[in-house]
């Protein structure tokens, strides 16, 4: 830092300290600045000779003048109101953002379909898709399509009561789930779909385990 800069900072610091000292004296120990008060007395006497209105006008005028000068200096030096500095402006790209359409992520359409379910009937129209996937999973595990279909019909492919009841016509949906469906159809529809998808996903990873559960033979009527 240059000598001039140091000098400037030093003077500024000293005058600030002096100012604080004077204020402290004024408030806490007025007797200390009695000499200054005495020196002011002739000025006060002189001021007292003027009329109050005249004096007030002068004071207001002086302050207005100072305000004008400050304002003019600010204007001339190109000072204007500025917002906080920001690292990344609102109209700029965030450095950690990705410019990728979420619709290009696998399963986006399925999620949209599940979220768009508004009634139990809406949910039921997707049952066949899930049944087909479950049948394909069981087939991959070595079961014949007929047996796999019957297994899903009877719900003997998963531990999940809701999924079993939702995809299998021969199995009832648990009472609690039916009650929930009566209270809030949309939420229960989505819930049954998601639970069924979970169950199908589990089945796809281990179809052999599901095939161990015995199923009832089809009875000819």
């Amino acid at each position: 830092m240059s000598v001039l800069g140091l000098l400037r900072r030093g003077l500024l610091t000293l005058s600030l300290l002096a100012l604080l000292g004077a204020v402290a004296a004024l408030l806490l120990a007025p007797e200390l600045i009695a000499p200054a008060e005495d020196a002011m007395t002739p000025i006060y006497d002189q001021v007292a000779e003027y009329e109050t209105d005249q004096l007030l006008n002068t004071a207001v005028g002086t302050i207005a003048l100072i305000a004008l000068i400050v304002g003019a200096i600010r204007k001339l030096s190109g000072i204007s109101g500025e917002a906080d500095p920001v690292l990344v402006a609102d109209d700029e790209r965030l450095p950690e953002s990705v410019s990728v359409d979420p619709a290009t992520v696998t399963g986006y359409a399925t999620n949209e379909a599940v979220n768009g379910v508004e009634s139990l009937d809406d949910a039921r129209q997707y049952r066949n898709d899930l049944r087909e996937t479950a049948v394909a999973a069981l087939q991959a595990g070595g079961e014949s399509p007929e047996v796999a279909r019957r297994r899903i019909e009877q719900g003997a492919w998963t531990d999940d009561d809701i999924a079993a009841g939702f995809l299998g016509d021969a199995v009832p949906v648990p009472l609690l789930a039916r009650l929930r469906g009566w209270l809030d159809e949309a939420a229960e529809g989505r819930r049954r779909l998601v639970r069924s998808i979970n169950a199908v996903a589990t089945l796809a990873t281990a179809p052999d385990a599901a095939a161990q559960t015995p199923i009832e033979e089809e009875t000819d009527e």
Partner: protein
Amino acid sequence: MSDATQRSRAEQDTTDQSTLSQSGDDATTTEIEASRTAESTRSTLTLRRRIRRIGPWSIWLVGGFFLLGLGLFYAEATLVAAAAIPFVYVGYAALSTLPRNLSIDVNRSVDDRRLTPGDPVEVTVSVTNTGDSVLTDLRIVDAVPEELAVTAGSPRASLALRPGSTASFSYTVIAKRGDFAFGDARLVVRSLLGTDTATLSATVSGADSVNCTDPAALDGLHQATKLRTGVTQSDQGGEGLEFHSTREYRSGDAQTRVNWRQYAKTGDLVTTEFRQERAAREIVLLDVRPETRCSSAVTHPTGAEYAAYAAEAAVERYRRLGHRVSLAALGVDADDVEIPIREAGNALWVENAGTETGQHAADAVFSAAADVAASRTTANTALTSLVENESEPHRRDISGLVAQFPERAELLIVSPLVDRTPLSYAKRAAVIGNAPTLLSPDPTAEENAGGQLHSARREIRLREARGVCERVIDWPAERSLSAVAAAVDRGGR
């Protein structure tokens, strides 16, 4: 606060950096001299904007004079004392300024290992205060390439640095194919009171890009196809019939290959290496059809991008080994390839990529495939079913391509397996004796119901593929290609 003061000046020798600064400012009011130095240890700082909240000519001054005048007028000591508050405020703000010679070194380092698409790359940025005054509040944000997504950590930091001290922060991005350059870091430096603030941009030393361009450098994928004995002999030691060399025994070596005679003589366990024999003819079938151009997460490359990279790496590898490798590409339009390429079925066909013309053609196909693989396919939400309709390919298309396959050649199918089409090709190839191997990058994630369902359907197809193919290599989304290649090289899945 409406009395914010701005004095800024762009460095004279920088171009286009002055957009944020007000031109016509009195240059003498700028106190910061951004250090421009030839020393490599310092970043070049460019002042973009400087804001001084409380300038020497603040409105607070008027307030101070007003209180002072009022206090004197009424001879009221409290009012006179109160006038000190704005004066002290302005005075202290004038003292709290940024150092004249800001000097900061920003250095960036990137994992220097070889990158493949999908690899997490750790980027570490270290900031050193090379000046002689304390920086009480330094905020920095690194310019991450737009194409790369940050998956962990943050490219932003807020630091306080003593002279000479260094602080660092790191974040992780996911590599994509290509060379992606970082930009200059952006900094905001504030004085202790926050009354003097400068926005700067800084050049960053060290790594300036994430480079993931060369599939040829990837080793190991050629081991994916089954080694068939009696076709050709390579110079590498391994399993086979003809003696190649001996080496020290390593755990895991087959007992039949231990030289027991020498063990009886000297007590040393030595393994005999035979000249490795493997199929000399390979076909790489790359699948980048529009269905495959989706990813497991917004941050990750598409399944097609992984497949294109892996296929190119495999072809390069086979070619270097002197094999006769042919290339078939599904989903690349002949019009997108720079040079005319033969079509077979609905695929592009490059016979023997080992020759000069073949190599040229294969490179053109791979370049086009990399481009189309990166153009993502948007899901069709207008469907009335949970899963996309799976259309089987025409028998004519399959026979058209499979008819081109050389006899006894082994087929490596590189496909994300988003539908059964690759399986149709595998089945047909298996029938006519081209033993198929499947390498399948996983474009699904089990984060939500949609991902789970697609993952389950892919799992079912993989099971089916295991019945058709000689070998099925499932490549999970969280594993990098180099790790998969290494696993393939070791003979695992």
